[in-house]
């Protein structure tokens, strides 16, 4: 049995005017476990807190009930007071007799009676309280960024600038991501490479940043502050320390027919390759599926030509194991597959391309060296049709239900650039809505219409029919004229919906981060914690959280970095002691609790238990208190009552119920 002290606050007249405070003290003093009861004008004042300290000393209190305002107001205050007085802060309970009583009731008898009941419930709870100590866990002062696009680079740079080590893991041979494939960026039309490349160089040169390209995260264990990650460094077959990046190997490589990933398959590359000229690191990789040496054992030209002797056909994948305090997911996006959209003839005509492919076509380093030409015959197009919302805003299973957000702006950009460079080319844009929220965005779109004469038609395209003469017959709606338009175009550009990178579900599973039905990672709170995953220590940067453009991505990348830095700045993490805990003798190991845990805090271990003399190995739930946030979902999912929540235990809540109902 506890030795409980009850302190009833007048709160000036806030409580005392409606609740007979003296009566509460008198009644509560005879409750089981109560050894001290008193009232005071302002319990939260210095003097009030001192009264608690004195009572703790003199009456040897082990538990405290303060009848006062809402615990949301002063629970922390009284816990600290208790701690100063020498008892565990979690031995304090608050009976809310102000917001939930004196302020809403007028009849003094009624309010007093209710105050007594609320106090009794608090006393009943404290009787079952146990001292709790916040756990401590150490923080590894190193962050991992998964994905080396603009989101990952920016997050890494911001973390590194704050003085913390950060590693970037990038799947492809170079960092740079989607942004490196873009030609110009809206709304300022500056060259993408010109603004991205310096950031790539900065990241590569930063003393706090380690870049693992051509690498993938293979395994993640641990929890916030203390993750252990296995990174697979795929064999490049090039010794990066020796390679000078001269490019001679790529010039001589006889296998030249592999479609270039960087150019979206519109051009080809060699078997030994760097994806693009400004790649970082400027170290090629050998594609073993295309390499003649690997396929037939003959060739070996690159090794012969390499002056630095960097080519090593025996190189093996390598696993690097590293510890991290925080992990940022910045895995970005890809365009959706258009296989289900036969009506746009994407698979039938090379002149129907996606907007991302157009970026490559427009780019000086691209397959056409920046000349706008038809990919079928290399002729200059005279009539170009853009189709918006291809696969976005679809409620069927062909597309995505969300708006891809960036298409309206990049289509305006493309239209404008074409009209600027090739004034004789007619550009028609079929749109459903033009969505341009953003600074200088609508102005940008209006410029495309007003200044550059882009023809915007409200209506969707129903069908693109390749003609025998090589033209594309576009059949679309003009809803404002209520007409069906038939237009012969030379090129059709599809504003294809974007979706999270294919690998993200695998990564989310490794990280136990929650993911939505569209494969975007879920935020801890849609409004207030948009860059954090509900899983502690996991942060989101860029399109992995939802469609966004470059400026938004960069802002979010910075926000994620700040959250990471905030975490890494701590030497130790204090964990909420009100976490779930499984009684190993009652646990069935059935996994119900883990199924409802939003934080992936529950795992199972085969544990040797001694159940009243029976020794056996059982599958037992283990709660990681660093991850558990204390919601209690697991406690109800658990049929045997093995899982309980400290600070809000089953018995504590039942005792409150009993006290209220008696």
């Amino acid at each position: 049995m506890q030795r409980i002290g009850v302190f009833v606050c007048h709160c000036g007249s806030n409580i005392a005017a409606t609740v007979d405070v003296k009566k509460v003290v008198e009644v509560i003093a005879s409750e089981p476990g109560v050894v001290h009861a008193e009232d005071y004008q302002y319990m939260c004042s210095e003097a009030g807190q001192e009264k608690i300290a004195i009572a703790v000393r003199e009456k040897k209190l082990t538990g405290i009930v303060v009848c006062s305002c809402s615990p949301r107001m002063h629970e922390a205050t009284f816990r600290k007071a208790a701690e100063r007085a020498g008892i565990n802060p979690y031995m304090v309970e608050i009976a809310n007799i102000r917001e939930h009583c004196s302020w809403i009731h007028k009849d003094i008898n009624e309010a007093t009676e209710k105050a007594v009941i609320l106090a009794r419930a608090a006393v009943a709870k404290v009787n079952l309280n146990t001292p709790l100590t916040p756990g401590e866990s150490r923080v590894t002062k190193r962050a991992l960024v998964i994905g080396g696009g603009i989101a990952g680079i920016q997050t890494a740079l911001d973390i590194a600038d704050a003085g913390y080590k950060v590693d970037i893991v990038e799947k492809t041979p170079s960092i740079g991501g989607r942004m490196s494939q873009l030609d110009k960026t809206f709304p300022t039309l500056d060259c993408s490479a010109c603004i991205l490349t310096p950031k790539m160089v900065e990241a590569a040169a930063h003393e706090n940043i380690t870049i693992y390209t051509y690498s993938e995260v293979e395994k993640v264990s641990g929890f916030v502050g203390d993750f252990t990650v296995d990174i697979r460094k795929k064999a490049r077959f090039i010794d990066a320390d020796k390679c000078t990046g001269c490019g001679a190997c790529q010039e001589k490589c006889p296998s030249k027919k592999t479609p270039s990933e960087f150019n979206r398959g519109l051009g080809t590359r060699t078997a030994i390759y760097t994806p693009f000229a400004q790649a970082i690191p400027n170290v090629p990789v050998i594609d073993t599926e295309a390499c003649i040496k690997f396929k037939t054992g003959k060739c070996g030209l690159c090794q012969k030509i390499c002056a630095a002797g960097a080519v090593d056909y025996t190189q093996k994948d390598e696993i690097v194991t590293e510890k991290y305090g925080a992990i940022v997911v910045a895995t970005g996006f890809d365009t959706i597959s258009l296989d289900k959209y036969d009506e746009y003839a994407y698979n039938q005509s090379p002149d129907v391309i996606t907007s991302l492919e157009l970026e490559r076509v427009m780019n000086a380093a691209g397959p056409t060296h920046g000349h706008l030409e038809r990919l079928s015959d290399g002729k200059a197009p005279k009539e170009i049709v853009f189709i918006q919302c291809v696969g976005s805003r679809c409620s069927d299973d062909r597309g995505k239900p969300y708006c891809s957000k960036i298409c309206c702006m990049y289509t305006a950009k493309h239209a404008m650039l074409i009209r600027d460079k090739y004034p004789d080319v007619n550009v028609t844009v079929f749109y459903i809505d033009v969505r341009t929220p953003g600074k200088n965005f609508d102005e940008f779109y209006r410029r495309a219409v007003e200044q550059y004469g882009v023809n915007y038609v409200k209506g969707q395209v129903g069908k693109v029919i390749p003609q025998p003469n090589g033209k594309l017959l576009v059949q679309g709606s003009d809803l404002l004229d209520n007409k069906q338009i038939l237009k012969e175009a030379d090129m059709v550009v599809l504003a294809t919906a974007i979706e999270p990178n294919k690998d993200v579900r695998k990564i989310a599973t490794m990280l136990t981060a929650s993911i939505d039905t569209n494969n975007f990672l879920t935020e801890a709170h849609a409004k207030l914690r948009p860059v954090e995953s509900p899983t502690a220590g996991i942060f989101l940067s860029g399109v992995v959280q939802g469609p966004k453009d470059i400026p938004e991505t960069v802002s979010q990348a910075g926000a994620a970095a700040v959250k990471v830095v905030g975490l890494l700045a701590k030497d130790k993490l204090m964990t909420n002691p009100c976490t779930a805990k499984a009684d190993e003798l009652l646990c069935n190991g059935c996994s119900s609790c883990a199924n409802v845990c939003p934080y992936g805090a529950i795992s199972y271990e085969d544990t040797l238990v001694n159940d009243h003399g029976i020794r056996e190995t059982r599958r037992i739930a283990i709660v990681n208190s660093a991850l558990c946030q204390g919601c209690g979902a697991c406690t109800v999912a658990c049929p045997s009552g093995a899982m309980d929540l400290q600070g809000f235990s089953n018995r504590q809540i039942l005792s409150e119920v009993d006290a209220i109902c008696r």
Partner: protein
Amino acid sequence: MYKIAKENLASLFALINENNELYLPVQVAGQTNFAAYTADANVDLDTLKTVKSPKDVFFPQSETLYTCNKEDNKLKITPEKLVDAPFVVFGMKACDIKGIEVLDRVFLSDPVDSFYAARRAHGTIVALACHEPEESCFCKVFGVDCTEPAADVATWMIEGELYWKALTEKGEKLTESLKSLLTDADEAKVEAEKSAVKEIVEKLPYSNLSLEGWNGDVLTEKFNDALWNELYKPCLACGTCTFVCPTCQCYDIKDYNTGNGVQRYRCWDSCMYSDFTMMAHGNNRNSQMQRFRQRFMHKLVYFPANNDGMYSCVGCGRCVDKCPASLNIVKVIKAFSEKGDK
């Protein structure tokens, strides 16, 4: 000897109920158990065996012992009142009455259980002889004569008439108060009924079960027998056998917080339960084999050892009918004798 026509039994019960609480077999939701008589109760004398034995009339499944309340700052303890009004149990069978004999050994020996003793003192038992014994019956094995129940009053239901014979002083007294409804009868029909039923009893499959080898002297031998390791396996550790049994007498004492105080009550417990006799140090029987063995060892070895050879099984066969895993005391006895034969 008296008799009363079956259709007049309702009046008889009403008359008994005027001066006594009356318990008798009542059907509720398709099942017949002993319950207090009410005018609209669905009395069922045709079902041979009630699901639960009538022991709960004397030893209820749950009964309050005393209540603690807080008065001012003091604790006030109010013992539960003992039964002090006469009551009648109608329709107990010979085996059930034998069961009461077993319970008497436990509760009326020193220290006397005052709650039980009060009920025994105030209760009058009117027994009903068995008419159509069933295949699970084996009362004969324990020396019970189902045609001649040894109660305060014995009755027989023969061709729509209930024959009534007082056997004790209590029985005479009750009979006296019911005279207005009873008519005189001779015993010829009853004797015929008895011998007819006895013939049936001889034909019952369990009637010639041998108890050889089961007595108070075989404790160590039986206790250590490896056979238990096989027999218990299908056991689900439920309390069905215990709770339908007329002789199981174990109970647990628990407290119930009413909000205004505490009621200390006792309720039936089952040696099949994992928390049975759980103590601070743990449990002295922590495997189901041990718990299973306990039940049968108690009935066939420990109890006779302490009670002049009296078994604490009466052969009512309720466990045979009700065990969810089709286990029962007969299978245990047979398994041991088969093993002996080998």
